[in-house]
């Protein structure tokens, strides 16, 4: 079936609200998923794989472990990027405004690919940002995404590493942020430890997004039902008393 972006965002907002994400965070989380899907980067697949982690009420809050004038280390304590990265990027943004450029190391953060939508926001707000992370073991992958100040779409590269390569640090991410320097990062073309590499240019993201808007977003009925069921937690049972609040008074 096909759904609209508006439907998707509204439904995902309810889903994340149902997981007790805060106001402000559940809107971000919904748009982080829909941005990936809309721009051809399998947002639904990422979310399906992440469903076990995104409901992270029981996890400790995001914690600032260390900082100096231009750098910081942040621990997400196993939270999903959907429920933590926006805060972290805001911190990077604030530090860059003061220091000119800021470097943050993010630890124990799941589903980091969802950062792409937040990078698009950074560009629109006049900030340049780069994110680098490695992921998985069989096979391991590495990723870099960046955006220049004033741009609407990021540049993204993903490489599959050879079998004997495994990430030194799991669930980490490195962020570099600046309001003075445009950071345009891309994985190098053919290092010896890579099986394959692909890059997506901003223009490709823009074209994919337009095409999706034109025809709607394809989703399986089962997954759509899952999203809707997750959102049912915010709906109130229909009773005769509640009907009175809909016009019967």
């Amino acid at each position, binding site marked *: 079936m*096909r759904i609209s972006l508006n439907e998707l965002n509204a439904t995902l907002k309810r889903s994340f609200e149902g997981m007790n994400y805060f106001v402000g965070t559940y809107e971000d989380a919904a748009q982080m998923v829909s941005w990936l899907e809309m721009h051809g980067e399998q947002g639904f697949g990422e979310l399906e794989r992440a469903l076990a982690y995104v409901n992270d009420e029981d996890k400790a809050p995001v914690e600032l472990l260390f900082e100096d004038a231009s750098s910081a280390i942040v621990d997400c304590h196993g939270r999903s990027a959907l429920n933590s990265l926006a805060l972290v990027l805001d911190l990077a943004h*604030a530090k860059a405004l003061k220091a000119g450029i800021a470097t943050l190391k993010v630890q124990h953060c799941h589903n980091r690919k969802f950062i792409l939508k937040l990078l698009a926001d950074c560009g629109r707000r006049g900030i340049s940002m780069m994110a680098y992370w490695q992921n998985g073991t069989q096979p391991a992958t590495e990723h870099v995404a960046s955006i220049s100040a004033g741009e609407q779409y990021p540049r993204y590269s993903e490489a599959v590493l050879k079998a004997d390569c495994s990430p030194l640090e799991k669930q980490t991410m490195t962020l570099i942020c600046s309001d003075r320097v445009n950071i345009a990062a891309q994985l190098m073309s053919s290092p010896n430890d890579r099986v394959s590499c692909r890059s997506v240019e901003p223009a490709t993201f823009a074209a994919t997004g337009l095409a999706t808007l034109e025809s709607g977003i394809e989703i399986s009925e089962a997954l759509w039902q899952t999203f809707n069921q997750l959102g049912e937690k915010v709906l109130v*049972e229909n009773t005769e008393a509640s009907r009175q609040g809909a016009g019967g008074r």
Partner: protein
Amino acid sequence: MINPAVIQAELKGPGALALRPASQVMDLERLGSLHQSRLSFMRTLVRRIMRERWKIEAVRLELDNDGYGTVVYRIQTPTCLYSFVLFSSYLAPEDRNDRVIATQWDLTMALCEGEVDEAYVEQLRQNVPKQEAGRVDARVFVLSRANRSARNFDYVVDQLASGAQPDLKRISQVGYLYRTTAVYGSGKLGMADWQKVAARHSDFARPFAAEMFTCFMLRNFSLTQVEHIAKARAPEQAVAMQPQIKRYFGIGNSTGLGMAPYLINHPLLISRWIEMRELALARIRAFGVPGTERLARFRTLAARAHQHTVEIVTEDAWQTGKNQQVIEDLAALKSHLAGQPLRDWNSLIAWAEQHCSLQGQEMVNSILLEVYPDLVDELEDYTCVGEHQDLAPGMSVSELKALIEERYRWALDIDFSAPRATETFWYRSQEKQEPRLGGSELDCGRAKQMPLGIGLRVVQCYQGLCDYAAQHPEHSCAYFLFLKPEYRGIVRRIQSLRHSLYGDIQANLLDQDVLPMHLLRCKLAFFGVSKFDPRSRLWVRNTMFQGAPLLDDIGQPFDDDWFLPLTPAIDTEDAR
């Protein structure tokens, strides 16, 4: 087209015009006192249709003798082609229900991109009549449904079939043949997203333009349908309706709470709508001279407003009282204008603020906008705005605190510890996700309420912020939100609205005595409706497009003078 920089300079900066303050304009009761104006979306849409001479024709009119069947209109604008597809079905009287929870309607319809072929009409037929239970695709812009007016439809058919015109006294009681109960757009049920419509279809790239057009088409179909049924019933005797009576028929609308959260959830957009209306008024105050012609026009329109208000019929005692006040206000205005020469419009507005009810004051303002199309109409192109709410993480907590104290004094002054202050809560029901209001009578739901109590959220954030700022006054908001992520949404809203003149409605929407009717009326006034007929404090009937041109009028001279229409004089042998 005017340079946007001029508008920005008029809104802000050293050369800015004197706009009314947010404390006055964003008061809930004043927002609930607004009337239609030249900038209302129906008005701007009709101006576009008439000036661009849209070609609208029924290319398929398959109705049986009772008016049931399928109709397709082809709409050719200067840039694009659209189709309006309508399904008319029998509905038992006992199944006729205005509530969102209804499942069957007399009419269902869709506004579509491009031409529709038979296969696509079939696809629509399988889904459009089901409304929320169906699915459409991104070729559809708007989906809607409507029910026949039990008081008017059969009566009008009977009259026409018997060779007579409808009695205008009766029509003035209820000025429509159908009443819409929902008009969906912006991506609901699989439809095209607003981003697509705005980017690719300039004809409908203004707020709610496609939705308003759907209602305009429905109104025109309703007139075609009654004539069709009358003629089928009495081919020799039936007559067509006189054009001036046709124009007096609008389309009914029934609006409930579903419209209210929109005003809270789109503060940047609402601020922009109000900025344009207020800028129009400020331009008139700054540049308008009440010379002979303008003053005569004002007097004519004030007299029309008086008669229009006299003609409004509602059973609601509260609304009747408000209307009566407006009638008295306009009578007083007439005396005031007769008593002394008018130096400038500012003195008239000041007089109205001293002597008239809120609805009377806003009526004077709407009339003023009508008198100055040259200062007002160009603002219709600026009712859209990007709705990104961006956090300013580098703002210091001290700055944020000062910002709240400056812009949200109205919220800080509310005593939320008072028992009635948080009695009301807004929530979504499992039944079609219908927005509803709850109170102490509802033992569940409070924990699932929608975050529409902006005042309370600001105060809670402010309290947390004061504690934090006392310890870390030099910190930026990013650090505060790191510790208090629960305030991220409200801080982002506050910061995003700091560049807007208006935005947040200055009222406690959680108060036990809150009147959602004000929210509904505010949005409906921006749409351009009139004749508000509240059925409770939670839903209202009203009339759209009454007095608007007919499809047959497109291409004819047009003076855009259908503001506050009056009952027409019927062309009868008696009258002649």
